[in-house]
């Protein structure tokens, strides 16, 4: 990687390979004459007509709000909860079987229950997304809090750093790399559950749009929805990676120096 020529080449490849795939799709679909695989040119035209910016307010915004709210609730609940579980052996022992069981339930199985209790509105969708996002963050927080270096904790003890100060300045920062790993997993799950919940019971949202287009045989429209979801997932991940890089700058630096 030190060789600059090699780096330039790698970056070129990174751009060139996806471009080649898109081009291949373009050429193949232009002549495919298949009802299920409309020409890419047509999909893109429909994409522009549909999403720039006509349906944004109707479908994209509600979807993103649900995803954001569910994800935020999950993080807000699981970090404090995970901290308590990570710090107390007793609480952890008592709650471990329950956690392991509830975690093992496939989340879509909760949909009928959620619809029954919470109805078909946003609350139900946010609930489902939050429940699913909870586990990766919770388990990673527990692990991260438990795994804080012994010498660091002794340092905190010797210098009488206690209580909230100890949590804020020592325990949480030390657990943060793992908490972030959990959040990244949760973000992907949030997108999946957003789509599923919108397909089951909804009148708005990108998931609803994809299913509705398929049902009315608007195949190019259906494809634009799928493309949009892929694009959203990609951008969400990229945005998250950006935040992570900034917040955990010290972590990358410390790891790099430890490897030297």
């Amino acid at each position, binding site marked *: 990687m030190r060789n600059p020529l090699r780096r330039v080449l790698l970056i070129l490849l990174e751009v060139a390979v996806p471009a080649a795939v898109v081009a291949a799709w373009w050429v193949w679909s232009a002549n495919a004459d298949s009802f299920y695989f409309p020409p890419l040119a047509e999909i893109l035209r429909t994409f522009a007509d549909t999403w720039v910016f006509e349906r944004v307010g109707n479908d994209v915004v509600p979807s993103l709000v649900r995803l954001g709210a569910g994800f935020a609730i999950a993080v807000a609940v699981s970090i404090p909860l995970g901290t308590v579980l990570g710090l107390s052996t007793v609480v952890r022992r008592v709650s471990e079987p329950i956690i392991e069981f509830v975690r093992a339930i496939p989340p879509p199985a909760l949909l009928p229950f959620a619809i029954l209790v919470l109805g078909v509105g946003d609350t139900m969708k946010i609930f489902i997304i939050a429940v699913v996002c909870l586990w990766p963050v919770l388990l990673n927080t527990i692990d991260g809090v438990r795994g804080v270096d012994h010498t660091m904790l002794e340092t905190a003890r010797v210098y*009488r750093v206690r209580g909230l100060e100890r949590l804020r300045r020592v325990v949480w920062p030390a657990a943060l790399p793992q908490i972030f790993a959990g959040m990244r997993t949760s973000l992907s799950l949030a997108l999946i559950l957003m789509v599923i919940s919108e397909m089951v019971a909804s009148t708005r949202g990108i998931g609803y749009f994809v299913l509705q287009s398929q049902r009315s045989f608007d195949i190019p429209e259906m494809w634009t929805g799928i493309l949009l979801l892929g694009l959203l997932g990609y951008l969400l991940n990229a945005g998250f990676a950006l935040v992570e890089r900034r917040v955990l700058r010290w972590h990358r630096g410390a790891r790099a120096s430890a490897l030297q």
Partner: protein
Amino acid sequence: MLEVMGLGKTYGEGERATRAIADVSFKVDEGEFVCVVGPSGCGKTTLLRCMSGLLQPSAGRVLLDGRQIDGPPEQVGFVFQEYSRSLLPWMSVRENIALPLRHKRLTKNERARHVEEAVGSVGLTGFIDHYPWELSGGMQQRVAIARALAYQPEILLMDEPFASVDAQTRADLEDLVLRVRTAYGVTVLFVTHDIDEAVYLGDRVIVLTSAPTQVHEILEVDLPEPRDQVETKELPEFTHMRAHIFRAIKRRQPAETAT
């Protein structure tokens, strides 16, 4: 000032119990620099942990200014051997040193002054806003020493602080500790397995036996001040004392169980 009375420490219970420290008693007077040496695995670190309140002794007491220690006291600063794990990598040098001062009753200006003075006294003024992982091992240990000094302790406990730095850095750090000890007027209890280091630094050297640990001998070091890496180590008294301790430790340690 600091008094260890009949201290004992046993790990585990019943048949599997191991006696790390049998019976150790000694005193450290105000302003003294006391070094503790002993064969490897002799419970030096355990002893220091009991003295800092990090560990509860199984027998005996540790008194600081006449009061029994039952948790880390405010008058004690501690320098760990594992500097890279004792400094917090998400904090700059400045923040690391300021962290223990947050709960002391100081104004913002006083706190900043304490931090800057301590950083200056260990010669890292230009690195105050660096992160620990941007510094070399020797510099990181300087930060840990500065953190202990800024805390304004009456007594500084040091647990083999220079065991994992190279020889040249080690000599520099030894002289640094002697300098700041005078500047801050702090009492130092310094644990090491290096006999030369103990004799070079200490006003007194406490020689321990192997586990279960007892005090083998307490020696007054009568070498001229200030100490100098070349001149002091050239003196016949230095060589003589070093040989004396070396024999004491070797004789007590059966060759086949050298750990």
